[in-house]
């Protein structure tokens, strides 16, 4: 596998995505809304009774932080399903497959193209979120809550892993099914387990402390490898070329 070749594909896809604003907007919108919404909620809730008590703040803040695992699991879907199924819809897959490039290089290129904007939007959202939250909670807590180890693990480990898993699911879905909508719907299911973890954390089945986060990261890393194997094994150029309508 030659990374340079994948990068050529990724660069082309990124160019198309940037020109095709609608896809880009859907990627940027979600992290932006959440990152502004949560600080607003903190600011507004319990305003009359003097705001949220300082003791509750860390609980809330660490729960909110987990959204930066859920976001990168959701936002690669429009790009990944657009870039893979899009090649087929535009009929551009046939000439592409006629060039000296391997399946792995194509898939990696497509994955990079979905990964970069997703992670960039997640990080940008997280930066806004942390700055707003710190400035709103500093007076009560007496210290800057962010950055902290939990958020570090989330942003540096869990978020990239979640984005990767989501992209792999999309790749698998779009090379198995024959139309765009089914592919993106299947791909979108990826965020459900993360919402599950979040809910489990909220209702106290697990605590989302750094240890738990590291365990989740390890499980995700193992899944990334399994899905990578499945995605390269299921991408069969002949089938995609001849069965997709």
């Amino acid at each position: 596998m030659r990374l340079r070749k994948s990068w050529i594909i990724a660069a082309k896809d990124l160019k198309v995505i940037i020109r095709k604003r609608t896809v880009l907007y859907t990627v940027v919108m979600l992290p932006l809304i959440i990152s502004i919404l949560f600080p607003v909620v903190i600011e507004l809730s319990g305003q009359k009774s003097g705001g949220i008590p300082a003791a509750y703040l860390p609980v809330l803040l660490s729960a909110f932080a987990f959204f930066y695992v859920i976001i990168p699991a959701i936002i690669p879907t429009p790009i990944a399903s657009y870039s893979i199924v899009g090649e087929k819809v535009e009929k551009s897959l046939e000439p592409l497959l006629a060039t000296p490039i391997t399946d792995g290089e194509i898939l990696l290129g497509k994955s990079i193209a979905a990964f970069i904007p997703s992670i960039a939007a997640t990080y940008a959202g997280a930066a806004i979120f942390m700055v707003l939250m710190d400035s709103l909670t500093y007076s009560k807590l007496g210290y800057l809550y962010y950055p902290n180890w939990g958020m570090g693990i989330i942003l540096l480990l869990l978020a990239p892993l979640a984005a990767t898993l989501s992209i792999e699911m999309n790749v698998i879905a779009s090379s198995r099914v024959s139309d765009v909508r089914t592919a993106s719907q299947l791909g979108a299911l990826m965020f459900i387990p993360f919402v599950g973890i979040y809910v489990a954390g909220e209702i106290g089945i697990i605590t989302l402390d750094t240890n738990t986060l590291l365990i989740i990261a390890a499980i995700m890393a193992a899944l990334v490898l399994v899905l990578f194997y499945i995605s390269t094994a299921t991408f069969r150029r002949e089938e995609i070329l001849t069965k997709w309508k």
Partner: protein
Amino acid sequence: MIDAENLTKKFGNLTAVEDLTFHVDEGEIFGFLGPNGAGKTTTVRMLCCLISKTSGTAKIADYEIGNDADSMKIRKIIGLVPDNVGLYDGLSAYDNLDFYGKLYDCTETQRKENIEKFLKMLGLWDKRDVSAGTFSKGMKQKLAIARALIHEPEILFLDEPTVNLDPESAKTVRDFILELKKEKKTIFLNTHNLDEAQRICDKIGILNTKLMAIGTPKELEGSIGGRKTVIQLDQVNDTILNALKKLSLGNITSDNNKLTIDLENPEKENWAIVNAIVGAGGHIQTVTVLGSTLEDAYLKLVRETK
């Protein structure tokens, strides 16, 4: 350059291409004719290593299709213009070509030079920065041809490149193909257009799942017989007809002082016929040979399979 032997492709229990054996020489324009569903696209896809063969063998240059290591080498030396052009509508004409140039490892100078050369040859240079999505069908077709040539392949596969084109654009494309022939490129051309095939191809194969015939346009025309010599005289009389009957020719009809004679080989027999008429005192105005056309040959071969 292209060598197929008993090449066969089945989709489930449908045989799309059966026992194809043919050879295309370097620098030759090979026309692949056949009705809808004959297996032309399927053959090109097999030769371009896009789909697997079911049985048989085929070699492109010295590489074997169906062998993974060779497939990569084949893809480097071929260019494909598929039946659906498959351009990136969101990218400019220039960027479409540049992307492909990069995939083929062309250097930056090579890409620049070739993009300019081909876009100029095809009359698209002024539109280089316009999104391919806004192009007309003909312009897209031309851009797809430029794309297939960006890495200067030895062999070019064209799947119905002039379908949907207006007569003038079709001519530009045909002239361009002939231009490529001068550069010693081998060209494999799928087409429905008999006239086009006859005008530009060195060799023609007629396919209808099986290869029905292969040869030069002339050979194919001759292959089904049915040629005639038509002689216009001032006056046809019995002396002339009797003189002709002695020559033991094919069927002779006379109408309005015009004689129509069925012949196997007019080039050889016309001399004796003209001699006999002149000997019998006839005054010849014109002598015309009517051959069967490529269309006759094509229709006959395609109907035979039904």
